[in-house]
């Protein structure tokens, strides 16, 4: 059974089989007046499992990832690790949490200290948590580097002596060094060349199966999410607008934004040029979002209620939730976004 087929088998998984590994409950993160993450709830089951968070700039997906690893404080809401509230942990408790949940960042160029050798960066992770006794650190670093597809000799190099893809592998090794139960992958391949991307994704897939890893994969790239995540949540201006199994989401989206996102992804399509849904209009001000649907300023099929009432995130099918007044119509295809009138002229 290929890895892809294995992902398929999870499509009909029940939502909560006992305590999920990580739960986020009504999380809100603010930066001054801006509500970067607005009342978001989700759950990551025990590994191996991938939950994708898809969105564009301003969606809050990156902030969500950082909040999960406690790099930014939450205004309200909770984060639970196997049922235990970790959102207010400090000191030793927080350190223990950091061992369980780690993060890999987006930019391979700044994710490593330019003045430290690569081995030292990975070793620092080991030393901070005492994963192995001091004498064994070097050996363990070599093992970790090999596991991500590098040579032990690379430990002596400085980051600028490695390629972008290699640096990202080091970042992954560093995160894996503490033997986490869950990883947050923040756009792990976006800054890499296309050919290198494929290899790093392959690495993630391999780690997933060897370590039964669970991860939250934050990305703007639907193809990446489709390859690695059973379930996906789509975020827009701080909120989740749709959630469900990745396959279902991409083949039969129920939210107009998901449809437009899917449509906007460029593809090598040698047949007739696919009819693109191009969104016009601008994002609402994140410091003062409208009391109505946040997408209505760009939505090609917005109706009156969309401009006055915010749609709640509600179940529309088993394992599927959408926040849209017209979700059923979008899902069934009763409304065709491609031929709908273009949105408002760009105005602020």
């Amino acid at each position, binding site marked *: 059974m*290929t890895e*892809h*087929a294995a992902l*398929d088998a999870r499509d009909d998984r029940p939502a909560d089989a006992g305590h999920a590994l990580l739960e986020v409950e009504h999380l809100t993160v603010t930066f001054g007046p801006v509500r970067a993450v607005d009342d978001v709830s989700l759950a990551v089951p025990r590994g191996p499992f991938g939950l994708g968070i898809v969105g*564009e*700039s301003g969606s809050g997906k990156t902030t969500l990832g950082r909040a999960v690893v406690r790099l930014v404080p939450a205004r309200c809401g909770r984060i639970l690790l196997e049922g235990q509230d970790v959102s207010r942990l400090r000191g030793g408790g927080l350190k223990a949490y950091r061992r369980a949940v780690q993060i890999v960042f987006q930019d391979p160029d700044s994710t490593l200290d330019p003045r430290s050798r690569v081995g030292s960066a990975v070793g620092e992770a080991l030393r901070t948590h005492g994963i192995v006794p001091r004498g064994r650190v070097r050996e363990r670093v070599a093992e970790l580097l090999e596991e991500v597809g590098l040579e032990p000799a690379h430990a002596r190099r400085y980051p600028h002596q490695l390629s*972008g893809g290699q640096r990202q592998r080091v970042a992954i090794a560093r995160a894996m060094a503490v033997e986490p139960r869950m990883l947050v992958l923040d756009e792990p391949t976006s800054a890499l*060349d*296309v*050919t*290198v*991307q*494929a290899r790093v*994704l392959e690495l993630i897939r391999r780690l997933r199966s060897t370590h039964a890893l669970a991860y939250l994969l934050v990305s*703007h*790239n*639907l*193809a*990446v999410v*489709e*390859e690695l995540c059973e379930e996906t949540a789509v975020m827009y201006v701080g909120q989740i607008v749709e959630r469900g199994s990745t396959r279902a989401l*991409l*083949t039969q989206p129920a939210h107009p934004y998901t449809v*437009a*996102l*899917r*449509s*906007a*992804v*460029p*593809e*090598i*399509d*040698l047949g007739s*040029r696919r009819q*693109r*849904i*191009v*969104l*016009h209009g*601008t*994002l609402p001000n994140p410091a003062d979002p409208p009391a109505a649907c946040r997408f209505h300023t760009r939505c090609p099929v917005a109706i009156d209620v969309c401009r006055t009432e915010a749609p709640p995130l509600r179940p529309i099918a088993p394992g599927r939730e959408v926040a849209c007044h017209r979700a059923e119509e979008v899902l069934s295809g009763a409304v065709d976004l491609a031929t709908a009138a273009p949105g408002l*002229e*760009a*105005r*602020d």
Partner: protein
Amino acid sequence: MSAREPILSIADLSIAFGPRIVVTIDALELGSGEILGVAGESGSGKSMTALAILGLAGTVGATVRGRIAFEGRDLLELSDRELRDVRGRRMAMIFQNPVSSFNPVFRVGDVFVRALLLHGARSKAEARERAAAGLRRVLLSPDLLERYPHQLSGGQAQRVAIALALALRSEVLLADEPTSALDVTVQAEILQLVRSLRDEAGMSVLFISHDLAVISELCDRIVVMRSGVVVEQGPASAVLGAPEHEYTKALVTAVPKVGVADD
């Protein structure tokens, strides 16, 4: 293929940093009214080529040899003053990071007006008129002219840059990764805009990108570069459908596709 002369023609190009040659191109042509895609990963030399075409390679310390002909005239032979007329007015360029390609201390409108005055507008009033009209053409409100670059979103700034190219009635647009830093939905808008530049204004476009999928959406012909040399070129359907070079094949297969069933 158009029987007309290519608007941009590169021959025997060699770009070097001291003794190190970083780009070697035997022949490259941009046809009039054509959208040519230059695809390659980092280090392929595509950005250096764009800089060389604009005569800006010297600013990063590179030396250029060969012939870059714009409408028959070799750009490398032009004087600084002649080059300045070509660059910016007849050849426009848009960059990857649109917000930072504007001087942050000036309002966007001031830059626009000044560029128009420099290249033909007869009065400030006329320039402002044309600027406003330019923004409307790219679906932006003329109010945005009052803003500073950092007050614009990436998509808006890129559209302003395109509006400028339109207003100056440039014949060629050099676009260096213009959508790489933009969201995918905004990217779709910009690509639509670039296509309309060719369709409505007859602009020839040289579109540089590492994203083969974006190039395939937009371009008539494709040139694939790697480590400073051209490895393959031809009509888009040929290069993508039946790639001949190993590297091109690798690039095409590496592009992740959404909705591909298990294989």
